[in-house]
């Protein structure tokens, strides 16, 4: 079949014996094992050693042979370049040449790589060491003449599925409507073009095909650089272009890749590695592995007819990550089970631990911040609630006190009213007809004004004590607070026959605070004290203020009452704690919260001599 194509090639290069550097890769013979003689293997290349895809097969086969062979190997590599042209006359000379090379010792194994080499050895088998075992490798099954296989011949063929390869293009790039096929004009290229044509025919109407065998390689580059969108290139082979130029060095694919405006696909992973997007491809290594295995068996003397090498078909679809990126092909569109090669390590791959560490730190930090914010908010809400609750309780507490003290308060108001009334009557009398005692009358009127002022002070004190506290903090004289409270409870003290002892330190400085609240503290403490003394014969209420250096005041309220049990000392400040039958149990709790809101502390004690002592300190305003 190859011969038929050979004759068709115009402007063919003449039959040249291409001795590819007489590659005597006597790798193993350099260090021959004493127990075994080196096996001579003739590797017969179809083209030069550098033509892909066979060069890749050859490389892989060499490695496999060396890996699998128990013996030292003497690899002799020769290439026929007849495949590039159509003239087969010089073949005989090449056969003679090979015979001459191996005249002393014929090879132990022949490995023909590629279809042209297979074709050549099959035709020349009778003259080429006919009893030497031979493997036809890296050849598509369609290029093997099974009918003339000899008893020493083994086929390790591959099977290219162009349909799958081209369908793959349409699968990963569904919008593709134009495919350019890169294929040259040499006999083998012509053969494969004819294999692709039916596939192209089946896709007619959906995809337009451009065949590059009509272009010089330079024109191919120009054309590929200007391909319209939705185009793709299918790389078959480029050995000899339309201008008859032989492209051996294997740089054609990379030159095309450098200029192309469309993604490039192929059918074997021999080309895979930089320029090809990927897809199902004939796996070179797998094929080479099978060649190696068969070679070892043949070298061991096994009958070739007993060796059956499985066909190497299209492998698992494999894609080049870089090309997927370049052409914007999503990994999700790839066939299931696809492999992705050359994934460039992302920052994630390189710094995974660091990134995870940082992320974890950020997350932990965020959690802590969130938690703190949450706690802050909760606390804020609780404080607001506590404040409003406390404010309400303070209000209730004040109202209760106001109720308790109403008689006392009325008493305190009536006193100046009485004085004023009596003075008014007196003034009227002094001015009665016939008397006209102006001086006495004026004196009475002055006294009325004094009484009015006093009454007003009492009323203001009541408002300040029992009204809702809307005032801002202001300087408060604690002695005055104590006096105001004592005025209001004056009658209360008397009715309960309480002896009052006040000892106020006039040197204490004003403190910054809420007057009403502080009055409430004193009032609560005093009322508690009065109540605690109800059943006692001796009823003394002592209220004392003392300066604390440098800026503070200590207020002490002591009674001679029943005192507080040691067990209760801890509990008296708790809300709802009460020893009184009618008490709410909020008084001391409120007192303490007010004192603490003013930056002070309240303590309770029950001295041995009886009664109880409640004292609290407050910070005075620093002197300017």
């Amino acid at each position, binding site marked *: 079949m190859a011969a038929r194509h050979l004759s068709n090639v115009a402007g063919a290069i003449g039959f040249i014996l291409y001795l590819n550097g007489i590659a005597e890769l006597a790798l193993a013979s350099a260090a021959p094992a004493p127990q075994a003689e080196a096996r001579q293997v003739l590797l017969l290349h179809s083209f030069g050693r550098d033509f892909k895809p066979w060069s890749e097969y050859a490389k892989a086969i060499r490695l496999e042979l060396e890996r699998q062979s128990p013996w030292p190997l003497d690899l002799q590599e020769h290439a026929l370049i007849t495949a590039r042209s159509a003239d087969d006359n010089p073949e005989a000379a090449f056969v003679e040449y090979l015979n001459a090379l191996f005249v002393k010792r014929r090879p132990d194994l022949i490995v023909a790589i590629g279809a042209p080499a297979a074709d050549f050895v099959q035709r020349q088998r009778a003259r080429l060491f006919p009893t030497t075992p031979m493997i036809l490798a890296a050849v598509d099954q369609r290029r093997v003449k099974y009918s003339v296989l000899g008893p020493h011949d083994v086929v390790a063929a591959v099977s290219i599925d162009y349909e799958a390869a081209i369908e793959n293009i349409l699968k990963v790039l569904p919008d593709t409507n134009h495919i350019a096929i890169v294929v040259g004009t040499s006999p083998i290229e012509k053969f494969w073009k004819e294999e692709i044509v039916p596939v192209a025919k089946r896709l007619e109407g959906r995809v337009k095909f451009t065949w590059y065998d009509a272009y010089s390689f330079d024109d191919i580059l120009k054309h590929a650089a200007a391909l319209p969108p939705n185009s793709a290139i299918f790389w078959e082979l480029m050995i000899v272009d339309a201008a008859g130029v032989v492209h051996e060095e294997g740089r054609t694919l990379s030159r095309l890749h450098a200029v192309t405006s469309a993604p490039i696909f192929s059918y074997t992973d021999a080309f895979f590695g930089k320029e090809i997007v990927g897809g199902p491809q004939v796996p070179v290594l797998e094929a080479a592995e099978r060649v190696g295995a068969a070679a070892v068996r043949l070298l061991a003397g096994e009958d070739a007819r007993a060796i059956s090498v499985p066909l190497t078909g299209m492998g698992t679809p494999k894609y080049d990550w870089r090309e997927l990126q370049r052409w914007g092909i999503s990994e999700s569109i790839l066939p299931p089970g696809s492999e992705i090669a050359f994934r460039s390590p992302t920052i994630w791959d390189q710094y995974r631990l660091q990134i995870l560490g940082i992320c974890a730190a950020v997350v932990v930090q965020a959690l802590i911040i969130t938690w703190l914010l949450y706690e802050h908010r909760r606390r804020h809400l609780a404080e607001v609630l506590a404040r409003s609750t406390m404010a309400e309780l303070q209000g209730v507490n004040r109202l209760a006190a106001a109720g308790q003290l109403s*008689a006392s308060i009325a008493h*305190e108001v009536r006193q100046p009213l*009485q*004085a004023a009334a009596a003075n008014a009557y007196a003034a009227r009398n002094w001015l009665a007809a016939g008397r006209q005692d102006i001086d006495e009358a004026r004196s*009475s009127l002055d*006294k009325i004004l004094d009484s009015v002022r006093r009454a007003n002070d009492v009323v203001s004190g009541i408002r300040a004590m029992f009204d809702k506290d809307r005032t801002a903090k202001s300087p408060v004289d604690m002695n005055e607070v104590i006096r105001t409270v004592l005025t209001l409870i004056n009658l209360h003290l008397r009715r309960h026959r309480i002896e009052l002892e006040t000892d106020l330190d006039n040197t204490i400085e004003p403190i910054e605070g809420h007057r009403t609240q502080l009055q409430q503290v004193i009032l609560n403490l005093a009322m508690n004290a009065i109540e605690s003394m109800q059943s006692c014969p001796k009823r003394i209420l002592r209220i004392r203020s003392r300066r604390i250096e440098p800026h503070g005041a200590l207020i002490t309220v002591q009674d001679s009452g029943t005192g507080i049990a040691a067990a209760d000392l801890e509990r008296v400040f708790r809300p709802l704690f009460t020893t009184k039958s009618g008490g709410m149990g909020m008084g001391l709790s409120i007192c303490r919260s007010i004192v603490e809101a003013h930056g002070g502390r309240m303590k309770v004690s029950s001295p041995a001599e009886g009664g109880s002592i409640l004292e609290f300190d407050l910070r005075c305003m620093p002197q300017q």
Partner: protein
Amino acid sequence: MATKISIIDDDRAVREATKDLLRSLGYAAEAFDSAETFIAKGDFAETSCILADIQMPGMDGVALQAFLVECGHALPMIFITAFPDEGVKQRVLASGAYGYLVKPFDESRLLDCINNAIAH
């Protein structure tokens, strides 16, 4: 016959005002700041009538009335209070008081009480 009216009230302003009022009405009046002070002075014979506050530290008005009755100086008493209490009122009136006045009171009511007390 004694015509001096003694005023006993711990509140200075009330005490002085009452004294001035009585003076303006032509009475001789003396003010005391507590029952104890009044007793200490012992001018029982000079006193025709007592105007006493009920709520006072130490000995209050009611106690004073009882004390005077007990020691034989049952002087006419008029009570004045800023803290009206029906029970106390009944008690003092039953004990012979000539009046129970709630502060602030009318001049005329005071005069009625005094006149009653003195006429006795």
